[in-house]
């Protein structure tokens, strides 16, 4: 069963005085199955961020639909959006987005508190998550007192604690050193093995190669996708790298691209 379905998504930005139009997304189609770990790759300006913002219900598309667990998120009313986001989506951002006014523990509690959960219940949920993410000893500290990797693990804990349908990660390793990045990616794989669906937008081949499937976006469309299948991470890395080269040299090898092009909306077998 697919947990996320994106059909014919289109987004056109109009400048403030309506002068010029910028087409960020032309026609995006893909779906994510329950328990999948999907990475979305693309160059700057390819529409990745726009796509993620729409999936996160922070932005609205010009046309098209987004179904989360069969429910069209675009039909949710503005005032219910925040609660919907809180209950169904978990976020991990490049720059962590922790609130410096809260301790690590309170940052993780934030979505639960907003949902009106009681302290004992929150505490009970926090215990195992903090242990798994190895941040139990940091709980009383404040964001400015811990390292980047620890901050990102806090953000992951915050995303996990609501047991969301889908975790959206926006360039999660972008601000981390390679060791922290590696450990975060291993963490994502581990969480994914536990059944959590993850959708990650990234630049990094390394990050993408830890996913089960990689989607490539170019000029506002899903240009290509690779399944990991039985491949090792190294093999996947190599293939992603090749594909990116292909995309970069796009025009010259148009025929090759044609051969590789997978029709939007292709389903995982």
């Amino acid at each position, binding site marked *: 069963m697919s947990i996320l379905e994106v059909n014919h998504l289109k987004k056109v930005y109009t400048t403030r005085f309506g002068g010029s139009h910028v087409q960020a997304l032309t026609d995006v189609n893909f779906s994510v199955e329950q328990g999948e770990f999907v990475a979305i790759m693309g160059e700057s300006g390819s529409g990745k961020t726009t796509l993620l913002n729409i999936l996160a219900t*922070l932005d609205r598309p010009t046309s098209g639909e987004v179904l989360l667990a069969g429910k069209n998120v675009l039909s949710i009313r503005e*005032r219910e959006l*925040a*609660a919907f986001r*809180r*209950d169904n989506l978990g*976020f991990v951002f490049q720059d962590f987005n922790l609130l410096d006014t809260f301790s690590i523990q*309170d940052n993780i509690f934030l979505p639960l508190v*907003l949902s009106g959960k009681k*302290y004992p219940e929150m505490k009970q949920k926090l215990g195992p998550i903090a242990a798994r993410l190895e941040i139990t000893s940091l709980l009383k500290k404040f964001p400015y007192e811990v390292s980047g990797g620890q901050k990102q693990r806090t953000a992951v804990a915050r995303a996990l604690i609501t047991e969301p349908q889908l975790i959206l990660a926006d360039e999660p390793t972008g601000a981390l050193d390679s060791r922290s990045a590696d450990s975060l990616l291993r963490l994502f794989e581990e969480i994914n093995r536990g059944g959590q669906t993850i959708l990650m937008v990234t630049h990094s081949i390394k990050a993408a190669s830890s996913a089960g499937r990689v989607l490539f976006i170019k000029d506002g469309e899903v240009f290509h996708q690779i399944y990991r299948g039985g491949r090792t991470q190294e093999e996947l890395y190599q293939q992603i790298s090749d594909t990116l080269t292909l995309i970069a040299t796009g025009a010259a090898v148009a025929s090759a691209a044609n051969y590789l092009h997978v029709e939007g909306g292709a389903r995982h077998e």
Partner: protein
Amino acid sequence: MSKFFYAKLAAINIRKNARIYLPYLLTCIFTVAAYYMMGALSVNPGIDDLEIGSGSLRVTLGLGVWVVSLFACIFIFYTNSFLMKRRKKEIGLYNVLGMGKGHLSRMIFYETVYLAVISLVVGLGLGILLDKAAFLTLANLMQAEVPLGFYVSIGAMRSAVILFGVLFFLIFLNSLRQIHLTNPIELLRGGQLGEKEPKARWLLALIGAAMLGGGYWIAVTITNPVQALTLFFVAVILVILGTYCLFTAGSIAILKLLRKNRSFYYKANHFIAISGMIYRMKQNAVGLANICVLSTMVLVMVSSTFSMYIGMEDMMEKTYPRDMEFLFQGDSEDVTEIFEGKLEEILEQENAEIENVLSYTYLNTSAQKVNDRYIIDPSNQDNGMAVAEYCTITVVTLEEYNRIMGTQKSLEEGEILLYYPEEKNLDSVFPLGEEDWKVREQITEFPDNMQANVMMTTHIGVVVKDKETLLHIDQMRKWPGTEDETTTELESCYSFDLKDHDPQLEERISDKVTYFFSSLYQEVAENGGRLDMIRYYQKSQEEALVMGLVGGLLFVGVFLGALFIMATILIIYYKQISEGYDDKDRFTIMEKVGMDKREIRRTIRSQVLTVFFLPLIMAGIHTAFAFPMISRILQILALQNVGLYILCTVISYLAFVVLYSVIYMLTARTYYKIVS
């Protein structure tokens, strides 16, 4: 590189940062204008032409100049530090791009020069223009004629240029110090270095609460006006220090306590509000305490000067019931008669008539209340005692009393009539001197007596049976170090109204009367009496003196009030801006984590409201507690009308609330523009 590069860059910087520079520049301009106006007024020759109370007015205005310059120093430094904090990033960028610290210094030098020149030129221009208006207002307040002409004080201009020149130079040095002490990375990060969570300082919070409580306690418990005057400054200092402690330490301690209470803290609205407030209070506590203290000062100053000004007439009428009063100290049967004769001659010459004459002899003495006994012998009085323990006792004979008041009262030996309006439940015995006097009756009226009115102490009136008793009481007094038993505090008073209230006539009469004072001494001595001293009061002159003082005070009060309000506006404006930049990031994070836009707006709004209206509420409480004390002090100045003072305070407070709210709403718009 062009010689003018830095000069141009500096100009561009100021223009580009208009949002933070414009209010700063306006403040500098207004402060310069205010300083010039105050300085020019205090030396304005027109003040001498006002004729009334020019001396006391000059003193008040001179004091105002000092207050304004002190204020200018503190305030310009405060706003500049804010400015530098906001600009750190920009300066850091220049530094990274390859401008050395020397280059930066040159840029900042030019910026400071521009600001200084603009502030001084525009400020002085504005000052000169407004000076005339201020002078007209002042003259109007003092109910004086306005001399024509436009006055420009070179002296005040020079001192303004010197003061603000030095100030701007110091600010320049301070900016240099900040640039030299920091490295580019720090400059780039600017204000948004990870803010440490403030510690709860319980001790400081408790000390603050104790000081505030102490100040309030003094204000509420003091009943004696003189004590109120001496303890007023103690109370003020306690309250100011207490305010600072409570705003800085107390607020955070309380918030942390709330955070410890889990079932309270982990609720959606409390959760965000409390943690947000802890940081807001850390950054804003001093600024808020400043606002609170400034507002309280404005409120107390404006309300008390206003009620004094409005209550003046009433006050003068009470203190000086008649136009002219002559007092002859000494024991003489016929001094009044001789004086009256002379006066009649003068009145005839001047073709003037008098009315409402009050002429009587009395004994005026200060007494010290020790163990419920009124000691009037100075040699037995304890000099170490506070002034508060003193009171003024006026003794008259029954004959005089009945004559003046038109009554038919009678007294036996050892009996007295007692006038003591402050004390409601008196014993039937009044312990005066070494003796106990039987109080035959408590009276509610006593002859007006200017001497007793102008004294700050409690006034008690005693009516004794006859002249012997009066002299007997007089004799109880032995001045230390003098064996001369003939020393006397006996005094005759002769006071009257002029039928025709002509100031020039009054002046001529007073001149002529004082002229024959020396012959009066002689004549009394020839007749076997003694005359130690003559004093006289002219109501119009006293009135002018007080008018000069009160009118000047009111003017300075309102003037400084306006200046303080301007300061408050600026502090609030800068706070809104800096908060806006901080909140912007938080705003987006919360939205991503799953908070409604409206919800965020609501919580932020409630925090901002709390922060800005906290000082206003505290200022209201301070003013309320200052109330009993101020009304006692006003009592000394013979303003008995408490209702008037209440009204003035309430009106001032309401006006301030309205003004403050308007300021808040105007600045809040800038804030929301930044946030969204």
